């Protein structure tokens, strides 16, 4: 279904202009925050803005109501230009209860708009939120524009204003509060209600009374702002100049799933995806299990080890075997991945990084699995590692990971993270025909080629279609004779094979296009990044250059092997800054490989970098 863009709801009040706005919705886990956040983002996109979103929710399915631990948040930036991060400070915070206020008000800019539901500031509410005094009454919020709303009362009034198609309980009525709030926000930022009205119909269509109640609440919120005397004004953000074409929303996990499907289609192979659920990777399994009509098989394994082994078995049998997991699962899969390296099986391992160590912060983002991806297996066990920089970029990154896995007959790790996985952005839908081809040639007949024979360019060994008469052979994890593939304990052979495995992966540099440098090709500072830090780094680098500083940016897709021209590039700058959401993992590799004193900038809070944090680091290094 494709739908045209929509226009702003007409208002009678004066409207200001802004180039971008950052909004934060916050409430209880059960308050439907993710729904209205997503819906608001969608509306912005339909109105032609670029957006970046950042859902931020607790690890519990439903943490105790009213507590800070239970706060669910949704941050979103929309603008009339390319938007790269969810934004540093918020222009507006919608806080549906005191806990949400307490937990998130730190991020609101001075003079920012603060919408609070005054009906939720009773004594018990304050206690649950661990407020000693009522923040609405002490002067702690003086530096914000406060917009107090009796959200609960007003919602009820709107919902039960006239009879509904069927009776609804008070509790059910109260559940519509989020849409009342959304209605307000739509008014405030001149957003159309249409996409949301459509959404409500589609979602609650089967229960007309609920749909009607939510629609009433949504409209009431809008009308409330239009009519209220409260001193707040509406802003408008005009449409961004986006490349023309067909767009859709996409999260990183969706893009990852689509990238795998695309690889299967282009390679003419079935996808065999085996996985064990784990936050924040589970959605990839959910997505893929809905693409069976594109020759995708999915299996929920008994654990991560089995998932990896099933995927390898799938590749052995001629499919593109893949699996997805997060940190703890990566640890568990390493032994199997090691077998895939040894037996040269094309497998894609998606790792959606989250806060560690151990169970850590399962719903928060981090980039601390890079070294584990590259070095986390016993023995010399090299494999390619690839990362994506934005949610939609997961599509091409996964595709590229698959292409390399197939071409080089090797497991490839694709590194995503919690921020990419759950973050959404508008995506100019690429055409299938523009994808680079994937040659998934398998040996399907006896033609003089031996199962262990290698491609002279890639060093990839044959991918024998098992079941083919005359090609019967055995593979395994013991060291293999470099020629015949039979077990070999010969010392020289082992050294040769070890070098061969390394050379094969190192040889993938030939796949890497020349490195793109944003900014000057030599100068004072190069910011080198990888993964989801892209947006923040680009914004900060752009700002620095706009301020006349000699700052360039390189963002890596290939982490192993590194691009062949990287060493030369690095040497052209006086300083190199490497921002990472870890304690300096890419830094370690770059320092070791190029023997340069690259500066790490580390943040390890389960939250993406803000632009300001990177700007500050630039300023410190350049003075």
């Amino acid at each position, binding site marked *: *279904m494709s739908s045209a863009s929509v226009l702003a709801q007409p208002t009678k009040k004066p409207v200001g202009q802004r180039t971008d706005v950052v909004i934060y919705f916050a409430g209880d886990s059960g308050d439907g925050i993710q729904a209205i956040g997503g819906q608001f983002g969608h509306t912005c996109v339909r109105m032609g803005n670029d957006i970046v979103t950042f859902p931020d929710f607790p690890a519990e399915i439903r943490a105790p109501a009213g507590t800070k631990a239970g706060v669910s948040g949704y941050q979103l930036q929309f603008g009339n230009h390319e938007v790269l991060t969810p934004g540093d400070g918020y222009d507006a915070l919608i806080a549906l209860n005191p806990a949400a206020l307490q937990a998130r008000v730190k991020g609101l800019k001075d003079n920012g708009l603060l919408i609070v539901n005054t009906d939720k500031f009773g004594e018990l509410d304050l206690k649950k939120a661990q407020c000693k005094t009522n923040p609405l009454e002490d002067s702690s919020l003086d530096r914000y524009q406060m917009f107090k709303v009796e959200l609960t009362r007003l919602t009820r009034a709107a919902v039960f204003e006239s009879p509904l198609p069927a009776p609804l309980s008070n509790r059910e009525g109260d559940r519509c509060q989020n849409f009342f709030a959304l209605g307000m926000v739509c008014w405030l930022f001149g957003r159309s209600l249409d996409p949301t009205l459509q959404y409500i119909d589609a979602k609650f269509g089967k229960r007309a009374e609920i749909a009607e109640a939510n629609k009433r609440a949504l409209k009431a919120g809008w009308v409330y702002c239009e009519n209220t005397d409260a001193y707040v004004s509406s802003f408008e953000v005009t449409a961004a100049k986006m490349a023309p074409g067909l767009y859709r929303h996409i999260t990183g996990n969706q893009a990852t799933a689509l990238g795998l499907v695309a690889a299967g289609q282009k390679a003419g192979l079935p996808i065999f995806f085996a996985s064990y659920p784990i936050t924040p990777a589970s959605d990839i399994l959910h997505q893929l299990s809905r693409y069976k009509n594109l*020759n995708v098989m999915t299996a929920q394994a008994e654990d991560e080890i089995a998932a990896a082994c099933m995927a390898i078995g799938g590749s052995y049998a001629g499919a593109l075997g893949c699996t997805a997991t997060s940190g703890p699962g990566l640890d568990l899969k390493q032994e199997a991945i090691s077998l895939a390296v040894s037996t040269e099986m094309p497998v894609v391992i998606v790792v959606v990084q989250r806060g560690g160590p151990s169970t850590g912060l399962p719903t928060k983002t981090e980039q601390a699995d890079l070294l584990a991806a590259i070095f986390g297996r016993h023995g010399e066990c090299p494999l390619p590692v690839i990362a994506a920089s934005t949610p939609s970029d997961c599509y091409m990154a996964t595709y590229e990971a698959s292409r390399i896995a197939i071409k080089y007959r090797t497991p490839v790790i694709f590194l995503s993270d919690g921020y990419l996985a759950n973050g959404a952005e508008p995506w100019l839908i690429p055409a*299938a025909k523009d994808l680079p081809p994937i040659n998934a040639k398998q040996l399907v007949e006896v033609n003089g080629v031996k199962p262990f024979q290698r491609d002279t360019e890639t060093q990839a060994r044959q991918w024998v279609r098992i079941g083919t008469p005359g090609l019967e052979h055995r593979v395994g994890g013991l060291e293999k004779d470099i020629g015949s593939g039979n077990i070999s304990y010969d010392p020289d052979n082992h050294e040769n094979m070890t070098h061969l495995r390394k050379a094969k992966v190192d040889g993938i540099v030939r796949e890497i296009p020349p490195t793109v440098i944003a900014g000057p090709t030599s100068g004072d500072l190069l910011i080198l990044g990888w993964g989801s830090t892209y947006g923040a780094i680009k914004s900060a680098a752009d700002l620095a250059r706009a301020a006349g500083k000699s700052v360039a940016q390189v963002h890596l897709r290939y982490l192993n092997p590194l691009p062949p021209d990287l060493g030369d590039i690095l040497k052209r700058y006086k300083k190199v800054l490497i921002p990472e959401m870890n304690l300096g993992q890419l830094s370690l590799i770059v320092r070791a490989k190029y023997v340069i004193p690259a500066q790490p900038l580390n943040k390890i809070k389960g939250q993406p970098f803000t632009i300001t944090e990177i700007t500050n680091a630039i300023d410190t290094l350049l003075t």
Partner: protein
Amino acid sequence: MSAIQTVPLSSKKLTNKDYESDQEVRWCPGCGDYAILRQTQKVLAELDIPREKHVFVSGIGCSSRFPYYMNTYGFHTIHGRAPAFATGIKCVQPDLTVWIATGDGDALSIGGNHLIHALRRNVDVKILMFNNRIYGLTKGQYSPTSESGKHTASTPMGSPDHPLNPLALALGVEATFVARSLDRDLQHLGQTLHHSAKHKGSAFVEILQNCNVFNDGEWEKFTDKATKPMTTLALEDGKPMLYGPNKDKGLRVKGFKLEAVDLAKGEAKLEDIIVADSTDLALAEMLARISGKDSLPLPIGVLYRTSRTCYENDVVAQVQKARQDKPPKGDPLDGILRAGETWVVA
């Protein structure tokens, strides 16, 4: 059907020899594994399946070297995980005949979880578990089937573990085919392998195997010609459970318990003797509990079989159904990329 297909050659009749690979067999002289290997080669030659359609998957252990010696496709994987590899293989190429060669340590210690999940899913694989009640390859530690109190390299004062009963475990997870045979009874072994190959679904076959280096004689009383008639009971569906050199001893039910009776001594009549019925789960469970340590003979042969959809069939059928119900139009990839809500920027 999955997209992965190979074209079978018109298969000429093969012999054992055709199933011998060019690799030297590297078990200790006298190891029970040799007999199992030879019988398997023989059975395969008798089956109506082209050689290239067989895949042997294994974990790690002496027994897991098996695939190297079979002139079929073979995958020597990692310790304990063969069932998971086999599941992947079966989903992608369901028409292959997939065998798992595994040991008591590989299958039941590190690999216990994958085994039980493969069995309950009824993945169509034939699992040959070489039970020598010891870790051979790592030189003689006790295994999950070793009797408690056993003195081994790792238990100089005796093992503190109560052993697993592989057949009771398999029945407990609703395996659809559960059998037992012996390395030293070639004919019985051959038959049992044959039955397992014919079964559609997971077949679990425990093969009592002698490790003459680290646990010599473990099964001797069941394999030795002199004692075997009294210590084992070969199950044959529809036949009464008789044993003994003159087949005049048998098993009878008393309450929920099995009891050995001597027909010659008049302890019971032929009608009292239970008739073997491999479709009766409760009976199979009772038979599986016979340890061979007390007076009851150890049952060998097929204890239980039933039929149930195979996992990979469902996996493949869902793909087929999805392709029928939602046939991709145009370039299918473009189709899904553009599915859902989209909008045009002009």
